[in-house]
């Protein structure tokens, strides 16, 4: 049973006038087909009227071995040479017969396209796909709006338990990581700001810089990005897994609206939790920056607070926080939409989860830019 080649040659050729005899020996198996194919390629069959392949000394024949023999015999048979399997057992004959493809169609032809054309095609495909995607997302917004209206008219339809559990997961459970990162961002902002402002002898304005940037922009934006990565992706993965298990179809057959059960609780939870998280992130970032001011600039905590009161107004805070529900809406919508788009395989869950994070962060930043334009237009 050793795999190593025990006998030196698998093939022995003898010729008697127009009769060629090929005696096979030993194991005609995958491990030795390449050598056999080489030997067969060297067989001189010119002028042969009949070829006999002798299986008497064959210890084992597998389909790879049979294939190589068949490949050798086919052109001979086609050119009118009589090919005989001598001393082949019933099983060996049956296996050889299996090699014949019959009238197998050769359909595996590749169409070659020039690379330039392929590139343009891909670009076109991508553009059309992106536009279609935007249209579908928009119609999903519409569907959600209709579902919300229905839920408002009969509040019984709102799933309270599910909503609360999502508030806990999106909001409460995110507090450690959001808090820590916001604190560190506050530290970095104050440190960098102080460094630059020192050149003008205006270190004390670090507090203004910190307060305004955190409250207006950074606090809510960073929170939204973190939540998109943490909870938006979770929405997609949860709903996507349910799609793969056909749970969403099961709901529909039981007369349960997946929009109502899966999407609305997540959407409402996100819209409640994200503003709260954003406020908390503001507090943590200012604490981080404040700590830096106290350590680096030598301001006392009461001085810091007084300067902060000077610098920021309630408007700054509201301008920041008013954006949070909109960001929340985008993140939850994209997360649920991508989840419902999952189809077929587990691979698709991963694909759509990535897609969900990329699209929701993109939309959050676009929305933030639009808000900036709006606020400057309103002169706030």
């Amino acid at each position, binding site marked *: *049973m050793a*795999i190593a080649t025990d006998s030196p040659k698998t093939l022995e050729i003898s010729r008697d006038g127009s009769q060629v005899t090929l005696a096979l020996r030993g194991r005609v*198996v*995958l491990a030795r*087909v*390449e050598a056999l*194919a080489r030997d067969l390629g060297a067989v001189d069959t010119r002028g042969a009227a009949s070829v006999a392949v002798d299986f008497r000394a064959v210890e084992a024949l*597998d*389909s*790879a071995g049979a*294939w*190589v023999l068949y*490949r050798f015999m086919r052109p001979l048979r086609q050119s009118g040479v009589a090919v005989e399997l001598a001393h082949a057992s019933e*099983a060996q004959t*049956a*296996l050889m017969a*299996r*090699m014949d*493809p019959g009238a*197998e*169609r*050769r*359909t*595996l032809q590749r169409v070659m396209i020039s690379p330039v054309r392929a590139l343009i095609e891909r670009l076109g495909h991508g553009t059309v796909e992106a536009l279609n995607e935007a249209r579908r997302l928009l119609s999903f917004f519409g569907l959600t709006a209709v579902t919300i209206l229905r839920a408002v008219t009969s509040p019984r339809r709102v799933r309270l338990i599910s909503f609360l559990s999502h508030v806990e997961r999106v909001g409460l459970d995110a507090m450690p990581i959001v808090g820590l990162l916001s604190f560190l961002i506050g530290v970095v902002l104050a440190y960098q700001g102080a460094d630059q402002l020192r050149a003008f002898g205006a270190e004390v304005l670090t507090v203004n810089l910190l307060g305004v940037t955190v409250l207006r922009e950074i606090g809510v934006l960073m929170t939204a990005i973190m939540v998109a990565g943490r909870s938006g992706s979770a929405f997609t993965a949860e709903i996507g897994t349910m799609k793969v298990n056909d749970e969403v179809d099961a709901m529909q057959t039981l007369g349960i609206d997946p929009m109502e059960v899966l999407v609305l609780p997540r959407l409402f939870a996100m819209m409640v939790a994200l503003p709260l998280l954003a406020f908390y992130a503001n507090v943590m970032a200012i604490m981080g920056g404040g700590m830096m001011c106290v350590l680096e600039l030598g301001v006392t905590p009461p001085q810091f607070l007084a300067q902060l009161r000077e610098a920021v107004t309630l408007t700054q805070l509201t301008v920041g926080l008013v954006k949070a529900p909109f960001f929340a809406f985008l993140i939850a919508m994209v997360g649920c939409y991508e989840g419902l788009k999952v189809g*077929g*395989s587990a*691979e698709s869950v991963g694909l759509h989860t990535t897609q969900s994070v990329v699209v929701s962060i993109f939309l959050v930043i676009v929305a933030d830019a639009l808000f900036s334009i709006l606020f400057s237009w309103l002169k706030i």
Partner: protein
Amino acid sequence: MASDEPIIRVRGLVTRFGANTIHDGLDLDIKRGEIMALVGGSGSGKSVLLRTLIGLKKQEGGSIEIFGRDMAKLDEDERRAVQERWGVLFQNGALFSALTVAQNVRVPFSEHTRLSSKLVGDLIRLKIRMVGLPPEAGAKYASELSGGMIKRAALARALALDPEIVFLDEPTAGLDPISAAAFDQLIDDLQKSLNLTVVIVTHDLDTLAAITHRIAVLVDKHIIVGTLQELMQLDHPWIKSYFHGPRGRAAFVQGR
């Protein structure tokens, strides 16, 4: 056609999940060239036994000899050499979803052989044809195939290196009766022409009746082996209700 030399010899096998003993001192001989079925109730450890045989689960005691070699004592290279000589068909096919059918069948060749790519291409087409798939199926992905075609494609991958043993985990589960019968016929055909040793885990009574030579029944953490006729004579309550229940009767009356 089955010779008496056992190709798989299991002695005193013990497997556990935590405190839960699945097999307790199990003995089993599988002869070269036979089709052996493993049957048993849900949770009796059929799939666990299969996974233990192919080395995906470690046994807690006892020995498994395949091709006369103790599997526990092999090093990495020796294991690989033995693995080349068996093929496994998993329950849901386990085709690599990122690859086409033809690429799936190519995987064993590129991992274990150094054949020219033309010859490999020929052999891939041959295997795809041997399991009864149309040639154009080679360019398709698993997600584009029906359940029966996935099983055939997975069988083509399992047979790629012309193994001596194939392990089949519920090959006909989830197939319609016509496809299931065709799949049974395919296994029977291939077994005869390639002189395979086939180990099938199955719940399909028709498969048992149609193609298996011997049946190993897993009951009470042990195993009872016999031909269908022998097992039907036995007076064990579980075996009795298995083979003489309404479904068993329906399958075996026609099968005999």
